[in-house]
């Protein structure tokens, strides 16, 4: 792992105007992504993980605002003009979305969708683009690539489409790949194939990757670092191993406990996180998780906890972090081994 971060996010805020008030989707988030590293972003719906990715890319809905800074390879992404953004999109930062069916153009053959970016950004000839497209499809494990190039998206299965999406994202050899819930719409065995594929290309190409998921387990085995988000804020950031072996934030801990795993004791009640996400237009003043936390003190309700270092590469924003190692907690614990 190199020391120079490829992406530095500092005090990023992304607010979206809605009829019901301003949604503070991302509220003061700072994180780093080193080059050649995979960073996982985990959170439930409404945690702001997708909006954060979009804010980084500059894909914000109308009536929204961003502040803070996002430095990518030394350039501030938030200050780019439309033209400059186009230079970066696809070429330096590529994105893979959740629904491969809806992110591909239904009336354009795979070949054109795959080669469009490289013809524009890399200026390659049509025949070279064709050769590259074949190689890309092979790399992402699409059988019979020659035939697939002539297919329309509807002629392929969901897993195949997601492979094509990944091939498109890789077409211009980006330095950073943002995968936003890339496997949520897929079946388990296909999800497995896609996750293996993402990790493989990320490592082979020495690319950086941001893997966004609501599922802790999806992120666990495939990333070097992970950050857990809750209601627009970072709860916990650190090396994947530390965060999963010793989750310190009460939310991370509770989330791991609430996940049914394949070795859960039958009929044993799951540990529940009571209540629901706070109203995004008026989040709680102190720690955003405090209203649902069993260990919240008065201070938790009034003061937002700072993100503090608790290990070599482990930061937690919690005033009463978990101190017992997970393995020692209780039955019905979901530790996946």
């Amino acid at each position, binding site marked *: 792992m190199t020391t120079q971060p490829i992406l530095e996010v500092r005090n990023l805020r992304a607010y979206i105007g809605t009829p019901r008030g301003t949604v503070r989707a991302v509220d003061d988030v700072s994180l780093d992504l080193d080059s050649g590293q995979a960073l996982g972003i985990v959170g*439930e*719906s409404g945690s702001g993980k997708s909006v954060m990715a979009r804010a980084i890319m500059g894909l914000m809905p109308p009536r929204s605002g961003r502040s803070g800074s996002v430095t990518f390879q030394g350039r501030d992404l938030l200050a780019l003009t439309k033209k400059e953004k186009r230079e970066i999109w696809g070429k330096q930062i590529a994105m893979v979305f959740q629904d491969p069916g809806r992110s591909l153009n239904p009336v354009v053959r795979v070949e054109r969708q795959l080669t469009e970016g490289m013809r524009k950004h890399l200026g390659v000839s049509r025949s070279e683009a064709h050769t590259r497209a074949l190689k890309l499809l092979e790399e992402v494990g699409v059988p019979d690539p020659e035939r697939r190039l002539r297919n329309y998206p509807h002629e392929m*299965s969901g*897993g*195949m489409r997601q492979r094509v999406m990944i091939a498109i994202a890789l077409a211009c050899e980006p330095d950073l790949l943002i995968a936003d819930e890339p496997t949520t719409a897929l*079946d*388990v*065995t*296909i*999800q*497995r*194939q896609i*996750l*293996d594929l993402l990790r493989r290309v990320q490592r082979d190409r020495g690319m950086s990757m941001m893997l966004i998921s*609501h*599922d*802790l*387990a*999806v992120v*666990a*085995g*495939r990333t070097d670092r992970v950050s857990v988000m809750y209601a627009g804020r970072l709860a916990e950031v650190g090396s*994947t*191993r530390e*965060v*999963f*072996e010793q989750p310190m934030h009460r939310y991370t801990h*509770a*989330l*791991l406990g*609430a*996940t*049914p*795993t*394949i*070795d*859960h004791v*039958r*009929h*044993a*009640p*799951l*540990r*529940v*996180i*009571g209540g*629901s996400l706070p109203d995004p237009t008026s989040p709680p003043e102190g720690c955003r998780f405090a209203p649902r936390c069993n260990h919240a003190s008065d201070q938790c309700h009034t003061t937002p906890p700072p993100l503090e270092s608790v290990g070599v590469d482990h930061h937690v924003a919690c005033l009463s972090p978990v101190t017992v190692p997970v393995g020692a907690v209780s039955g019905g614990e*979901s*530790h*996946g*081994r």
Partner: protein
Amino acid sequence: MAGSGATHLRGDEALLSVQDLVVEYPTDNGTVQAVSKISFDILPGETLGIVGESGCGKSTTGRAVLRLDRITSGRIRFGDEWIEEASEKRMRSLRRDMQMIFQDPVASLNPRRSVADIVVEGLTVAKTPAKERATTSVSVLEQVGLPGERFAGMLPRQLSGGQAQRVAIARALALNPRLLICDEPVSALDVSVQAQILNLIEELKAEFDLTVVFIAHDLGVVRTVSDKVMVMYLGKVCEFGDSIEMYDDPAHPYTRALLDSVPLTDPEKGFAGPPLAGDVPSPLAPPTGCRFRTRCPMAQDRCAEEEPEMREVRPGQYAACHFPLPSVTGRDLPEPAAVGAGADA
């Protein structure tokens, strides 16, 4: 026929017994057999988990039990009535005993009705007096953890996903059913809410003496709630047995592969075993012989020629496979003498 055969049925004590069920849907490109001669049963008070990937026929199976879709052939016994023979009128009253909850909680509620009305919809159809309906409405909402005074007047769009699913459960319970069919009840929900709903289903199951069919694609979720598990693939049953025994010691290669594909919350391992290659074949033209053979790491010539029958591979654990995985705990029963006779059906 692969994955058919009824050796694993447990006879008359079962509350629900499905035998050789076939459900076909006509499409522009021919007939799809969504469910192809499957058999299973559930004892009273049991929870049966049905798992499999999309297109395996698990939801179709659930719908067929309520006869929401036309049954092409096969028999379904509920209590002492044959579902496939019942008249439409009889079906309507039988369905009161068999309630279903669906995946998308908000879409399964009438958007123009209040929560209080929705939960007693079934009673309205049954012409229960208004006074009784009002009391039931309050009590079932209470039972699913939605205090009536706050929620009774709300419309579905004002509810969160978890609350809407609670309303759907309350609606099912209002009719005091014996069988509850849950079709992916938590897949649209967040992890923290999912745990609440799963716990609620477990509590209510005990309180109302329910028998539950729990259809899901998430193996972790199914293991948590089920006594028995049935694994399906492309319209066929692969394996049937006790949930713990099957998870710890799967006999069918597909069950093994499914378990190996579940991501673990373990930063070191990632997955428990090797990945499964390929994609699910088109249900319009399923492979000959065993339908799983195109992706099966242990497939041999025989798998293409002959469809495996369900047979007892280990005590209480049934698999439809010519070459089941050896038990890791040495519980294997001896191989049947006549190879391929399938005479044990």
